[in-house]
Every structure is written in C-alpha cells, then in structure tokens.
C-alpha cells in the first residue's frame, strides 16, 4: 500500500477522533470545519515523521490537539458551547432530549476548564491510560493522576451549578 492510501485509511479509521477534537476547541460550525481540515492537513504533513514505535492514536491525538492550540482564535475559556454541542449531536444523530441536555452539560463543563485541563480531561474521557496521557501532554504519569483528581473536583462543582 502506498503512502497516500495508507494515510487515507488511517484518517477514515479515526475521523471520530478528529471531529471530537475540532468540536472541543472551536467556536461555531465554520471554525470547526476549518480546524477539522487543518488537522487532516497537519496529519498529512507529519505522516512521514510518525514513529511506528509510538501508538498511532497517541500520534494522532498529539497532532490533532497541538493543531487545535495553534489555531486558537481567542484564548478565552468560555466559548459558545451550544453550537458545538449541536453540531456534534448532528453527526451523532442524537434525538432524545435528555441525551441532548446531557451532551450540553458535558460540553459546558469541559469548556469551563483551562487549556491544560481540557486536554487532560479529553484524553481521560477517551479512555486513555495515565502513561499515554502523560506522553501526549508532556507531564509525568503521577502528575496526570493529581491533575485528574483536581479536574474531577472542579467539574463536580461545575455540574452542581448546572440545572
């Protein structure tokens, strides 16, 4: 299989990952689409540098999340979460109202975090182990544990505030 076919296969297998990252780091549909394209482009640009020794998903999260950082339009924490939630719901075809509410609470809670916390919680929710989170974020695995506990506390308070 040539490089291009290999790349297309990888992207198609992980398009959900790219969609989730682009939804979490943008404000509105246009920005989300733009970031989605940018992530695919950056993945293609760095495809040669992908080291087989590291996990494919680790490399993809790293490139996707770092691209999201470099494409931040504003560093304000609070962004319009309704449109992001709605857009992901559209892809996920969520029809149940209570499910929609849960997704809204989920997004609003995550958006209340700072960039570092947001990155850690995204990987945690994606089921990544501490070692892998540490590798992507650039902190020690024990520090990941400490940060996750703090974020949990913060989110708990945030969730209590939600109706």
């Amino acid at each position, binding site marked *: 299989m040539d490089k291009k076919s290999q790349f297309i296969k990888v992207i198609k297998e992980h398009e*959900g990952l790219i*969609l989730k990252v682009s939804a979490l780091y943008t404000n509105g549909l246009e920005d989300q689409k733009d970031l989605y394209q940018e992530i695919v482009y950056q993945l293609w640009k760095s495809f040669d540098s992908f080291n087989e020794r590291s996990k494919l998903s680790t490399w993809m999260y*790293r490139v996707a999340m*770092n691209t999201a*950082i470099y494409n931040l339009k504003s560093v304000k924490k609070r962004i319009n979460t309704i449109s992001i939630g709605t857009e992901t719901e559209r892809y996920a075809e969520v029809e149940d109202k209570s499910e929609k509410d849960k997704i809204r609470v989920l997004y609003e809670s995550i958006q209340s975090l700072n960039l*570092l916390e947001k*990155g850690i919680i995204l990987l945690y929710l994606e089921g990544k182990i501490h070692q892998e989170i540490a590798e992507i974020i650039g902190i020690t695995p024990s520090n990941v544990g400490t940060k996750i506990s703090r974020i949990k506390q913060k989110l708990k308070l945030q969730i209590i505030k939600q109706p």
Partner: protein
Amino acid sequence: MELEELKSTWQALSKSVEKQELLTDQTIEKMNWEKYRSKLNKIGYSEYIGSIICFIGAAYLFMNFAKIDSILMQIFAIIAIALLFVLPIISLKSLHAVRNSHIASKTYIQAIEDFAKRRTRFQKLQKLNVSMALFLMLISIPVLSAIQGKDLGELPHFWTLIFPITVIFFVGFARWVLKYYNKILNETEKMLSEISN
C-alpha cells in the same frame, strides 16, 4: 448529573460519532489540496500586495526627493522611505512568527507554551507596526505637500482645524488598536500562568 454519568455520555456520544463515515478518499485529498492552496493564498495576496504598495510609495518619494527644498522635509522623507521598507518586513516577519512548526514533535504543554510565545511576539510586532504606520501617515502629509510644491500653511484652516483633528483621530485610533493588542497579550499571559499552576 454525576461525573460518571458525564463519562458514559461521552462514551455513548463517541460511539455514535465514530460510527459515522463522513469522509471518502476524494474528500480527504480535496481537503488537503484546498488547505495547501489556501495557505499559499493567505501569504501570497494580502501581504505581498501590501508590501508592493509600500515599495512603490518608497520609490515615489525617492524619485521626487530632489523636489524637496526644506531640510526638515528631507529628513521626514528619509524617515518615510525607511519606514516604507521596514513596515512590510515587520509585517511579513510577524506573519511567519505565528505559522505552525513541527507540531508533531511537541507535547501538548510545549505546544501551548510555543503558541503563547509566538502570539506574544506577533502582538508586540503588530503594536510596533501600528505605531510606526501612524507616524508614517503623519509625516507623509507635509512631505507630499513639499513634493507638490504646496505650503501647508496656505491651506485654509490647516493648522487650526485639519491638523489637530487628524492628530486626534490618529491618536484615538492608535489607542484603540493598542488596547485590542494588549487585551490579547493579557489573555495569553493568563493562559500561560494557568498551565504552570
């Protein structure tokens, strides 16, 4: 809603999103090609056209330099020529400073720090650029008048009305622009202090 419930919501959402097959081979290729082209366009058009305009302005002043009699106006013309060369260089430099580099080799924290550093440098260069551009506009008025052989003092209400209003406008505009850049700089500093906690 409990935290664990959030996690299960996320996982359910993930499963549903991952089931979608939105991309085809063609859309991925098209996406990359469009992104590559738009990056070229972004740098190609606005920045280079702006630079060419500045260089034409500098050339105009240079060619008409002999028509300027007053030493003060000659000094202003030299400063204007220098600025017309320096401004586009600063602009292009600041643009390159925020362009992405080696994304895959950085950790998430390194990316945040690098982004903050580049953004800060960019905002500072932009602040310098705006200040110099406003100064250039101010000194261009008497220089252009001198080239055309007109005495500004002969224009009705020039010193009493036109000049003070122009200065007030420029100062107000500069303050507004600099306030915007300072706001972004403060946000960036806050972002850095948050990750170091």
